[in-house]
């Protein structure tokens, strides 16, 4: 209850912030978190080295012989590519929401994330690992729903190791034990059982999405709420937790509304988002039946 009261108390302030953000000012100067070019370049060099090593390893190892029960999937041809048009029957509403999200992001979300980025990196990484670890709960349940026990057990192992040895999830010990973080969600479960992405949907605050993803968010929330690990998803602490997770997610998302300043940004983001989802679906379907896209139907339908 305290959380709800705090939320209500914060609302007028939030509205004032939004309004003031929209007010005309001739100059605004914002201090951003400092850039770390040396560290970033060192990371880029390391990534490149890993990619080269992985490519060399892939060349060295022949692909395993295909088992007769699972013939290799047909390669995707140009004819299989979905239409360049995206199915977006709710475009007017979506555009309105996109615009609202852009303003909210600029005036509320991004300043919060930038403030958060000033916290020492070690602390932020602990927070990030903590939320990743919590997300293993819905990952395990969803791998179960997808009848993929190996992946499910791996995520369960991660959850157990990180929650104990990793001090409640603050450290990602499991990755070092060769149990990589491979999240899945209810939207993927729906895709696994053959559901198409459906119409493009811009969700308030969350951003670009599809109808299936929207249902997926609700499903994942339902799983978390139902399992309710360590009683974190109900009552007052859940508000604080939700806000912190939102800020952590935002601080780790390198997207800025209208940084392209392009009048076509809505179309571009829609195009890319839905194609990304369809390509991810292709990989899922390759495990099961080959699903053909009808190239004349707008993508996502």
């Amino acid at each position, binding site marked *: 209850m305290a959380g709800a009261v705090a939320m209500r108390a914060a609302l007028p302030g939030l509205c004032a912030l939004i309004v003031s953000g929209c007010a*005309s*000012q*001739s*100059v*605004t*100067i*914002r*201090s951003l*978190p*400092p*850039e*770390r*070019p*040396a560290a970033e*370049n060192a990371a880029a*060099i390391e*990534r*490149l080295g890993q*990619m080269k090593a992985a490519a060399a390893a892939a060349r060295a190892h022949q692909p395993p012989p295909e088992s007769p029960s699972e013939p290799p*999937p047909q*390669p*995707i041809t*140009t*004819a*299989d*590519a*979905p239409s*360049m*048009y995206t199915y977006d029957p709710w*475009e*007017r509403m979506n*555009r*309105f929401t996109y*615009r609202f999200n*852009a303003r909210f992001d600029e005036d509320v979300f991004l300043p919060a994330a930038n403030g958060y980025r000033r916290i020492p990196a070690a602390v932020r990484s602990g927070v990030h690992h903590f939320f990743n670890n919590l997300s293993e709960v819905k990952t395990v349940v969803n791998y179960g729903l997808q009848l993929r026990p190996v992946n499910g057990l791996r995520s369960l192992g991660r959850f157990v190791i990180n929650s104990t040895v990793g001090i409640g999830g603050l450290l990602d010990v499991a990755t070092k034990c060769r149990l990589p973080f491979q*999240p*899945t969600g209810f939207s993927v479960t729906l895709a696994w059982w053959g559901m198409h992405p459906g119409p493009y949907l811009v969700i308030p605050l969350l951003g670009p999405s599809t109808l299936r993803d929207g249902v997926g968010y609700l499903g994942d929330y339902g799983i978390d709420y139902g399992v309710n690990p360590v009683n974190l998803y109900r009552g007052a602490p859940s508000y604080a937790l939700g806000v912190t997770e939102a800020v952590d997610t935002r601080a780790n998302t*390198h*997207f*800025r*509304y*209208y*940084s*392209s*300043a*392009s*009048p*076509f940004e809505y*179309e*571009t*983001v829609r195009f*890319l*988002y839905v*194609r*990304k989802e*369809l*390509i*991810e679906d*292709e*990989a899922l379907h390759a495990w099961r039946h080959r699903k053909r896209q009808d190239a004349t139907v707008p993508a996502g339908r």
Partner: protein
Amino acid sequence: MKGGIVNDARLRVIRHAGTIVPMLSRTGWRRGVVALIVFAARAAVALPTVELPDPGPASGLADSKGLRATVYGPLPQDLAPLPARVPLEEMDIALPWAKPLPEVLWFARRLRVWFAAQPGPAPLAILISGTGGDGNTQKLATLRAVLYGAGYHVLTLPSPTFPGFIAAASSTGVAGDLHQDSLDLYRAIEVILAHLPSRVRITDIDTVGYSLGGANAAVVKSIDAVAGRVHIHRAVMINPPVSLFASMSRLDRLFALDIGSTDEGIERLYRKLYARLANWYRSSDRVQIDESALLEAAGAVLQTDADFEAAIALTFRLDLVNVFFAGDLYAGTGVVVDPKHPPHAGDSLEEIGRALRRRPFADYFDKVFAPYYLRYRPGTTREALLADSRLDIIAEQLSHDPDYYAQTNSDDLILDAVELGWLRRTLGERIAVYDHGGHLGTLGERQQVADLLDMLAGRWRAQSR
């Protein structure tokens, strides 16, 4: 110009949307007589009425290696030493001469620039982005880092062809005139300098730009030499174009050659890309498409010279779409935007975007740029407008003023041999020409940065290399 920001655009979109891959195609790089016939026929279709100067080979001086360097940029291990920390401020500035803001550009009311301040007194380097780039591209961030590390305050500005600049800082709304765009830039610099935090103490001011921004940086200095309000000391052009329109026409031809000038060509490219990316992704063990996946995919997806050419041509074309749209909207020329019923913020722009992707730069010149300037600059001619787009307009200053410098590559795709020769002749001892890198592929490399710092300090000599 545009080819230059390919790498930027790629990283920018990867960074921001996390979902694009460099575009590619296998259509195209044909050699021999048959190729020439096909090429000439397509180019004739693509470049209709306007007589632009003959742009020469579509990929300029670039060979296979040049094309790859243009797209990928320097390897991270070849970069000059970078500082551990660069403080950064972001400034949004409303400029009084901006034209009334159209509803569809509601988000671009103020010009956004970035500033990195030294704690004490220091010289200021003003950096200008290449075609279509904002003031915080990957290339600008690299230059900012090395210049900050060398003790400069650094101010980074968008290109006058960036839609955010057109909306917030252009006095015409029609980008592409080298002098007019640079004048808008100059006036914006004046306002920005007046609003820098008072703690910032500036001892000297230089301008640096890459690609089209290089030409802007030099013209801005030449404007200041007359106006004298900013006191710009030195200007360095990195991979500048010599003729804006010749370079753009060349990229048009590249597009026509490697992608085709029709909807089908673009659709074919899209399908090829989708299929290659989907197959690559399916064969990888990845669960999600993220930034590192895309960097890895680029190697699998871009293979032939034609792929790289298509990536360069398409990136350029997508930036041109924004410039074309804004120009048509502001000039009221009615090519794709009905001047009496401009689109509203909630309207779909899908069809307009689709129509614009087909249109080459020649169309922009012919149907928006020239009509606008012929109307508002009485007495001018098409030929004069073309001539004004050349670096020749400041040839006198470039050859006599010792404070102009340039860096370019002998395999730059936005130049041909004549243009590179012109740069060498005009700048004499004040140009460094590297033997690799294509367009901007040397930006940030050790030698390029060492030369840049020497040039800005006025101690660079051709013999010293």
